[in-house]
């Protein structure tokens, strides 16, 4: 909220920073552990944006019972919904300015105020190899429920190495995007792996309110063939991180009181923080099993671009209460396939994701392959530190890449089902019978039953 802006923090003025220093004398020595990026040619400027995101507020649906007195469901919530959020929307392909009146903002875009989704649109970027600069435009259309707030927004790519403040989205060291303004973030990602992104303005609040998403970087090795695979988590050189299907799993949390406070012009006391709802891709079980909202194939080259209605609003799925939670957490695959699960945690608490009945192999953490340095210290091709587990325990801001091989189908009709859930039951139990929160299913079909994924998180129709 604006009354907590860091730049207005008032107890005392920040100190002028005074340091002392001497010129550094260089010297020969081993240059290890600090890998330099591969040198590539410069990118061509002035290309159109790869993605166009809008930042605003909105409403989502979480289980209405059991109620949380005063706070949940929120009495202000429109029909079908329970919980106030801040969030992003993907409006790629819609010009920010009105084509009929170029001096005005496009009503299709302004109209998305109060229509944010959670979690934020999943997107992915190819490793930078010289010409594929990635451009993400962010437009802040303001908050419908809180016109008194003039909060800026930003995109912080969490984990981006060697970032400059200008593109980091951290508003004290640089700047953020005020209401009614647009800014283009430039990314030249040189390190494959799973990352997160979120608004970094007053981030205790804006992150928790839902301006959180998952982003990953595809390795330049993709498209080549190693070990029978053409898609990989990392530039492994041997196919050890190859996979057939991939699913992003973003973990977030909802403390109902804080969401209620934002809708009702109140301030929560953040040290009272607790987790009322634990979300997987913006939903709680069993909603996690509901299908993805349909995506627009033409504009889903770099993001899961949910289909829109004529007025720009998200398409209404079979479960209208999930209109603004379009991303499923259901995993479907054929027996024998390798499946990459990309986990990232933008909640504030540790999670412990357990997969029953199938071992997962951890091939990456925090966008780093599970390999030590080679003897020369020049590349992470040394000791293999990957390991198998059925439980991934990770805290706020961490990511894991885990691959499992779908076991043989047991025969009979229908898929074999394996449960993926947060073993920290107090964050997986917001419904009766222990069912709730961060829980989903992995459905294994007989070999050849479902066709290949065209984009991540897609569950192609079962033949």
């Amino acid at each position, binding site marked *: 909220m604006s009354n907590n802006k860091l730049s207005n*923090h008032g107890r005392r003025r920040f100190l002028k920073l005074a340091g002392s220093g001497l010129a550094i004398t260089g010297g020969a020595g081993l240059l290890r*552990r600090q890998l330099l*990026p591969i040198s590539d040619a410069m990118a061509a400027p002035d290309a159109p944006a790869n993605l166009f995101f809008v930042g605003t507020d909105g409403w989502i649906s979480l289980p209405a019972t059991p109620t949380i007195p005063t706070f949940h469901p929120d009495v202000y919530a429109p029909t079908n919904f329970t919980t106030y959020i801040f969030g992003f929307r993907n409006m790629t392909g819609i010009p920010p300015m009105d084509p009929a009146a170029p001096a005005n903002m496009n009503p299709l875009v302004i109209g998305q105020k109060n229509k944010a989704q959670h979690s934020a649109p999943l997107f992915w970027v190819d490793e930078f190899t010289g010409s594929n600069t990635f451009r993400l435009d962010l437009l802040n259309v303001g908050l419908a429920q809180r016109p008194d707030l003039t909060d800026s927004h930003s995109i912080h790519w969490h984990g981006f190495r060697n970032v400059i403040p200008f593109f980091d989205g951290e508003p004290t060291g640089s700047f953020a995007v*005020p209401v009614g*303004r647009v800014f283009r973030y430039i990314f030249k990602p040189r390190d494959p792996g799973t990352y997160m992104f979120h608004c970094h303005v007053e981030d205790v609040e804006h992150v928790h309110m839902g301006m959180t998403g998952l982003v990953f970087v595809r390795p330049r090795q993709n498209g080549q063939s190693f070990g029978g695979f053409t898609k990989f988590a990392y530039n492994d050189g041997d196919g050890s991180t190859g996979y057939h299907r991939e699913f992003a799993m973003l973990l977030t949390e909802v403390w109902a009181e804080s969401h209620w406070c934002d809708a009702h012009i109140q301030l929560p006391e953040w040290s009272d923080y607790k987790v009322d709802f634990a979300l997987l891709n913006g939903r709680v079980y069993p909603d996690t099993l509901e299908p993805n909202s349909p995506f627009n194939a033409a504009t889903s080259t770099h993001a899961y671009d949910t289909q829109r209605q004529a007025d720009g609003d998200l398409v209404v799925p079979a479960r209208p209460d999930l209109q603004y939670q379009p991303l499923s957490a259901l995993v479907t695959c054929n027996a024998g396939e390798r499946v990459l699960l990309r986990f990232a945690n933008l909640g504030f608490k540790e999670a412990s994701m357990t997969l029953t009945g199938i071992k997962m192999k951890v091939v990456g953490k925090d966008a780093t392959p599970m390999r030590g340095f080679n003897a020369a210290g020049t590349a992470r091709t040394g000791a293999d530190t990957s390991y198998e587990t059925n439980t991934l325990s990770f*805290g706020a801001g961490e990511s894991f890449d885990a691959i499992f091989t779908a076991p043989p189908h047991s025969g009979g009709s229908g898929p074999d089902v394996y449960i993926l859930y947060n073993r920290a039951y107090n964050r997986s139990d917001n419904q009766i019978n222990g069912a709730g929160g961060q829980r989903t299913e992995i459905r294994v079909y007989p070999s050849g039953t479902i066709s290949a994924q065209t984009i991540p998180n897609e569950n192609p129709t079962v033949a």
Partner: protein
Amino acid sequence: MNKSTFKQLSRKLATPLAVAISSLLTGLPTMAMAAPLGVACTSGAGTNPSFNLTTQIGDIQLPDGNTMYMWGYALQGQGFQHPGPVLCVNQGDTVTVTLTNNLPEKVSIMFPGQTDVLANGVPAQPEFDPPLPNAGSRAISLTTTAPAQAASIPGVVQYSFVANQPGTYIYESGTNPQKQVRMGLFGTLIVRPTGTGGGPDHLYNREDSRFTTAGNWDEEFLVLLSEIDPYQHWAVEANPAANFNFNNYKPRYWLINGRGFPDSIADNNAAFLPTQPYGALARVHPYGAPAHPYPGAIRYLNLGSEDYPFHPHGNNGSVVGRDGRSLETEAGDDVSFEKFVVPVGPGQTWDVMFSWHDAEDYNIRNPNDPVGSPDNNPVDVNIPQIANQFFGQFYSFSPYLGVQGQQPPNWSTLNTCGEYYIISHNHALNQITSWGALMTGPITYMRVDPPLPNSCAQ
């Protein structure tokens, strides 16, 4: 002489007693006065150093304007400080720590990670009440204690151990620790490697654990994380003997090096924080040979009771050691790993190497680097007008390292020479608050200066 050193000196000179004491105590441990940033070591004299610590009562300042009653370890002859002194020793030293206890209850020091710790010349042992053997005995201290102060006579205990493994360690009270540690009885122990491949500017006995040190450009930093439940502290202040019900424990403040942001980025020994001597600003230069061939080092410690997932923007820390052990196999294979969140558990220490590299050559407008030169590499985006930005106090108003852009009228920036400020903070974001004051707590910045020579005040 830089400004900070001058301030420190003038403060010292204004206190003749302190001068007298420091001259009397020549040869006793002293905190290095030169460096306003980075690890501020208290080093013992010669090999086999001795440290004389006392327990003291004092207050610290918190970001919401509150002050907090604390207990702490301090150097003999000096007042209360929080956290305790950063004790720096060399591998192989026999370290002696004499604790003089001024508190009205028994106090001790644990040295987790050290072996064969002696207390008063015999192995340090847990203490039981009633003493063993007795069927009803219960441990009342995890290690040998110094008696409580009685009739103004302090209790004394002397510990010693051989610091045989390099790395970063905590020290903390082992007596009533859920109370005494939370009250502030803890500190940092750094053991510098002296074996083959080691040295004072290495984390471990490995060539590749060397970090940047050159005068005041030391890039060795401390991130000591802790937390405070104010009700516990007020309960102890009201009645030290009463037992605070730990079931009611609920932290409201979280600190880095004993300070909350923005105090965290003030210099070591900042005059306005008289009892919180340790800053956390990490000032570095862009990484890369030949000028800057070694990375920086950060020593993370968790002295709290919660998990602290600490997130440095803009770099993956390379975790080369944990709990005072280098991450390598017995065969010498490197098993270090990179993390963009360093998840430090209670009582753990993580040794991390880090750097910031000018990957896109955004240093183009260096005064020595004419615009239009072949390495001129503008950001391929139009820089928004100021009216289209919501900017912060460290912003240079330019994307380029070493450049200060046009500032709006009446704006007072804290950016001095176009340097970058890249944040580091705890990513359990409910912990970067101070009982209602948001965006405080365990936050600091990595300040990246333009390559030398530059126009920055040094």
